[in-house]
Every structure is written in C-alpha cells, then in structure tokens.
C-alpha cells in the first residue's frame, strides 16, 4: 500500500486570506480519489499546491515519501505529477500538435514522445482531425481533451484534474471520464480529481474527500457514501468540526 502523494496539514494563504487550513489527504498508487466541495472551498488551491504552484505556509507535501515542498512546478512535473488546471490553460497561439509536443519534451526522447502522441491521438480522434489548428480555435470540449492529452504526454504517475466537467456538455464529460479511467486502467495512472458535485464520479472513485471553507469536512470510501447523506451534510455544512471518518465495519 504505497502512498503516492501525501498532503500533511497544509495551510495556504493568499495575502491575508486563508485558503486552506490544516488540510491533509493522501492518495495511493493506482487510486481514483475525488475532492468535492462548493465554489471557493479551496479545491483548486489543494491541487495547485501539490503541483508546486503555490507554497504552503505550514505543513508538508510528499510524493512517494519525499517532501516536495518548495520545489518548482517543473521539478515536480519531472517527479511524475501533472496538472490539468481549471480553465484548461491551453496555449491558444500554438497548434494542437505543438501543445501536445510541449508535454513530450520532458521525456528527452523524441521517438518515445512521438509514439505517445500517436497513441493519444487515437484516443482523441477530434484532436487528430485538428492537429495543425491553433489551439485557441477549438471548442470547449476539445480544449479540455487537449489539456488532458497534453498532461498525459508527460507520462505522469499522478494526474491532477481540476473540475474537468466545468462548462461542458454531458456527452463530452462522459467521453473525458471514459478516457481518464481507461488511462488509469491501462497505464496505471493515479487520479486526483476535483469536482463541484458529481454523481458520475462517485461511481468510479475509490475514495472521496469533501472540502469546504478550506477544511476537510468528510473523508471516506465512495462505496460507503453512496447514499449521499453524509456528503450532503459535509457539503452544506451542518455540523462543523473535524472530518468524521466512515470506517469499514470491523
């Protein structure tokens, strides 16, 4: 049971405003873990901190047992962590192909990167069709696919996905989730996904964290939380305090 990423009591502040207070979470190798929570809860901050985009004032973050606190995003990327941020952040003035290529440079191996790209293009035929288009001209759904594909080009062990379904049509969301889970199956990818709310993800996730007001309100196995009662509690905030853990019956 190897912990791929451990977040240990981090406090993150933007100026005077506290975004995360003493947040701890962990993801095992090969798991699919989902963080859900309302807008402004701190979900993006959590993923950003893991990817190295923001420095916590307190606490620690470990990848495969080694602390990555204070490392630059490009160094963390080389440890196998890849972020698909909220809002996609594709390089609009670069072509689809160039966007994908950027992800591949981290390999240092042109042939391998080329092979990866070809494989990804079979998974995302819409991207294959638009290979030489400036990425800014793609539709929202296509951009999301590009963002995911680009992140996967870095051959990550851990894929952090921030609100993949935001603003997308259900059909596209399905397609993206299908691909993510497929990658998890085939490439042993570990997934940590943020969503505002999603019945969809509950079906596929191994474990769930509920984040609200910068704190973890609830943590448990998805299987135990199927009825949604506990989640609604934690999400809407009846009963403040520490996260009740739902243990498996002995």
């Amino acid at each position, binding site marked *: 049971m190897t912990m791929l990423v451990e977040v240990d009591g981090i406090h993150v502040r933007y*100026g005077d405003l506290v975004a995360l207070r003493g947040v701890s979470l962990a993801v095992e190798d090969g798991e699919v873990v989902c963080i859900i929570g309302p807008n402004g809860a701190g979900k993006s901050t959590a993923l950003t901190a893991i990817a190295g985009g923001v420095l916590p004032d307190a606490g620690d973050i470990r990848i495969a047992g080694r602390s990555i606190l204070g490392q630059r995003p490009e160094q963390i990327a080389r440890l196998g962590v890849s972020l698909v941020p909220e809002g996609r952040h594709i390089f609009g003035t670069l072509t689809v192909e160039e966007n994908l290529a950027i992800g591949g440079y981290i390999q240092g191996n042109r042939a391998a990167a080329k092979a990866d790209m070809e494989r990804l293009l079979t998974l995302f035929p819409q991207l294959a069709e638009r290979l030489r288009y400036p990425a800014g001209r793609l539709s929202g759904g296509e951009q999301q696919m590009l963002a995911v594909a680009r992140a996967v080009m870095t051959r990550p062990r851990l894929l952090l996905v921030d609100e993949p379904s935001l603003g997308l049509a259900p059909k596209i969301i399905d397609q993206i989730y299908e691909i993510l889970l497929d990658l998890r199956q085939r490439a042993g990818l570990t997934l940590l996904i943020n969503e505002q709310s999603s019945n969809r993800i509950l079906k596929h996730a191994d474990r769930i964290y509920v984040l609200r007001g910068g704190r973890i309100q609830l943590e448990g196995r998805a299987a135990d939380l199927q009825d949604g009662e506990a989640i609604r509690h934690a999400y809407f905030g009846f009963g403040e305090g520490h996260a009740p853990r739902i243990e498996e019956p002995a």
Partner: protein
Amino acid sequence: MRSFIARHQTPVLLAALLVLIAAVTLLSRNEALQVTLTEMFIRVVVVVGLYVFIGNSGIISFGQIGFMCIGAYAAAWATAEPSFKGIMLGGLPALLRDNQYPFLVAIAGALVLPAAVALLLGAAIMRLSGTAASIATFAFLIIVNSVYSNWDSVTAGVSSIIGIPTVVGPWTACIVAALAILVAYLFQISRVGLMLRASRDDEVAARASAVKILRMRLVAFVLSAALVGVGGGLYAQFLGILTVDPFYLNLSFITIAMLVVGGMSSLTGAVTGVVAVTAIVEILRFLERGLAVRDITLALPQGSQEIGLGIVMALILVFRPNGLSRGRELILLAPASTPREMRPDQVTIADETKATA
C-alpha cells in the same frame, strides 16, 4: 484629544525629523553640508510629490520630473532679471518678460502651471492600464525635455537662464518640505485618497468603478504635479542658474530610487528614502574624495556614487521590496485603537477573489 494627536502623529513626526536634521546640520556650520541640506529638502518636496501619485495609485510614473522642469522654468520666468529675459527669452509674454516677481508668485506659478499640464495630460492617460500609463509618463518626460531644450525663445534652449535670485536656503526649503508632507498626509486620509489606495492593488474593483477611479487618479496626478512643480520652483531659486539637462533620466532615476528605498506605499517611506539615499550618497562621495592614510589616499573610483546607489536600489528591490519603512507609517505614540485608515497594508478584495479555488 490624545487620540486625535495619536491618529495624526505621522506628519508631525516627519516634519520634526526634518527640523531636527536641519538644526543639527546647521550647528555644524559646514557650508557644503548646508547646500546638501537644502538640496535634500527640495528632494523631499519632489519625492513626496512622487509618492502622492505613485504610492496612492500604484502606477509608476517615470515622468514626474517633467513637471519639476515645468515648475522650475515657471519660477525662473517670474523671478529672473527683466534685462536678461528681454535679450534671451524674447518669446515670453510681456507680463513675464518685463517684470520681476517675488518668491511667492514664483512658487505659485511653479504650482499652477505643472498642475494645469497634468490636468490635460492626466485626463487623457489616466484610463490606461498600469504599464501603458507608465510608458505614457515616460514619453511625457522625453517630450518635455525635447520641447524645453529646443524652444529657445522661451527657455534659452540648451544654454542657461542665469541671474535667478537665490532666495531659497535650508530653512525655506525645510518649511516647504514640511508643508508638502502635510498636504500629502491630508490627501491620503481624505476620502479620495483612501478610495484610491483601496483600489490600488485591485484591478477588478478598479474596473468595476472605472469612472470614479479615473477621477481619483487624476486628482492624485494633478496634486503630485503641483508638489513636484513647487520642488522645481524651489530648485530654480536655490541654484540661481537653470538648464534643462538635470530634468531627465538621471534625476528621474534618483528620485524614484529614493522612493523605492524608503518604501513606495507610505509617506514615511518617501521621506526616509530621501534622507537615507542622501546619506548614502554623501558617504560614497566622501569615500570618493578619499581618506588620507599616511602618504596614500585611499579612495573609491569616480562614479562609485552612482553605481553604489544603483546597487543599493537593486538590493532593496530584492530583499526589502517594501523599502526601509516596510510600507508602514512612522508612529511613536501607540494609538488608542488601530485606525484602519492608517494602515497602508490593508486587506483588499484582491485577496478574496484570489482565494476562490
């Protein structure tokens, strides 16, 4: 009563500091130091003027020295000998050319003319974003320099205006500096000043109430130009000779350096910056002259002053970006309650929006 004093102690303390420096320096009866002292007080007026705009609006203006130039020449036009003006500055209107006016009139001119120009310029450029506005102010500096260097009939072009009565000494400059501090303080606690500071770090809020912000920035810009212009007026009547050369990139750099070293976002920063940089430059100048040790003179090479100042600036930017004052104001008496309006480092809406994860 006590709480009133406590709340508004900063300008008093700063003025007292200047008076103290003046008294100590004048006691030393060193001629050269007196000159440096007067120059320093004039720089306080200018840098406080810079601060009124830069510190409150957050926009770096590289062009304020242009207003100093305008103010200096306005004062010169008022007070130089009519005989000189008749020959060299034929282009001046007769009212100025044929008469000689006293100090206060000159200062009034040095205040009004730059302010008027600032009103026109600011009306145009205040709606530009921070970077674009900065570039526009830079362009303004070049324009002023170019125009004043070449408009021979009015400014004597590249030659000097001489014979300006040198009525400005250390005490005059000190008093004007103290007044400048007061004016700047009154502005920053006024409604316009407070609102401007609140919008300073927050582009979103600024854009939401765009028109208001524009007007507030304009007020700050005009007030800043007025103060800097007065500084120019003092300068002309201190030196007695006036050319266009000083009002260009070097002086712009030095005054901005003073503001940065002291701390851009507080009045205390503006004042302490001038004092600190003047001290540093004096020390370096002394070291350049050299210490005689037995038969050898140990000295820093010529030009170390400037390089030293540049390096100090860079170091401050890296290690203490808020300057020596850390963006806070000078206080000795602990105020009864922490007045929110005194804290330049407020929580802004920007912090709130950034946290929406």
